[in-house]
């Protein structure tokens, strides 16, 4: 084990968070959170049980995604973050989504990743004026991430999405660069 890394982890010093595009060779790292039963309840997808399925998912969904990045800790993917833009008259807005391996929860890494996205996405997507995120009412951890990153809570949309077969209330957050 790398002692340097262990020391840094234990002292809870801030680690370097960076974003980069995914490659298929990231499949082993992707599998870590995709197969994690602590992570998948918060997502619409079910826990992956084998790497071949994750590889297919990366080929079909992750790599072709218009804007998706690996959240890297000291260069190694520990999660994913995506911005999905709406079409037609809703092009002014895009939805933020993120996932991170459960062993890295509660350390400010996701908040840092969200802030990195905020610093770049409005330049990347011309005409984007609103970045929004929908969070399950019971997902307090994710709500804290958005609040620390500077998002505004706009309200609770009741019975908004079907999550794991259950119709769920979602909290709507948004970041408007000219206002937030």
């Amino acid at each position, binding site marked *: 084990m790398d002692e340097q890394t262990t020391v840094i982890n234990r002292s809870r010093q801030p680690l370097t968070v960076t974003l980069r595009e995914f490659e298929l060779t990231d499949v082993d790292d992707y599998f870590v959170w995709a197969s994690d039963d602590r992570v998948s309840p918060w997502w619409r997808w079910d826990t992956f049980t084998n790497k071949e399925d994750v590889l297919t998912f990366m080929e079909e969904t992750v790599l072709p995604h218009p804007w998706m990045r690996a959240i890297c800790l000291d260069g190694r993917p520990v999660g994913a973050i995506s911005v999905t833009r709406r079409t037609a008259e809703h092009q002014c807005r895009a939805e933020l989504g993120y996932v991170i391996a459960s062993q890295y929860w509660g350390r400010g890494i996701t908040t840092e990743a969200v802030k990195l996205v905020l610093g770049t996405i409005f330049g990347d997507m011309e005409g984007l004026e609103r970045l929004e995120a929908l969070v399950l009412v019971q997902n307090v951890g994710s709500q804290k991430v958005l609040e620390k990153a500077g998002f505004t809570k706009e309200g609770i949309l009741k019975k908004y999405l079907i999550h794991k077969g259950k119709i769920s209330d979602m909290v*709507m957050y948004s970041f408007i660069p000219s206002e937030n």
Partner: protein
Amino acid sequence: MNHDEKHQKPKTPTITLRKFTLSDVDAFMSWAADPRVTRFQRRDPYSDPADALAYITTHILPHPWYRAICIDNTPVGSISVKPAPGEDRHRASIGYRLAYDYWGKGIATEALKLTIKAAFEELDHLERLEAIADVDNPASQRVLEKAGFKEEGILRKYVRLKGETRDMVMFSFLVSDAV
């Protein structure tokens, strides 16, 4: 001053909902060609009935739930319910438009109440009806509230409308909010 004047609110006329037919094009123009009505819509007012006819044919007739708001069987507006895309079939959004001369008589509120009842009866799995109204459209916000919708929040810079990005008020009516 006439002291005999009764200061009563005029009764809302009896309204019914029915499907559109192509012969409704002239009635349709009575609101669709009016800039006062299209002010908060994405489209500009129609000037050519041929365009209106094309819209009725390609958009209204095949629509999953689109109705004419009628007084004595004559359309004075329209109301539509659009299911959400993809997996979220439990959710649908309502839109409505009314000819200007019929504003302020409770007609839109009545049409909404009829639509809410019909939508929950006819659309399988429906649990949430939603509607958005421009922050600068208090008349529409009041109509939704009177029909029993609940305001959930203001969604900032939510849609593009005629070259501008608008803040919208989100309203919902849940299957549990019985009429």
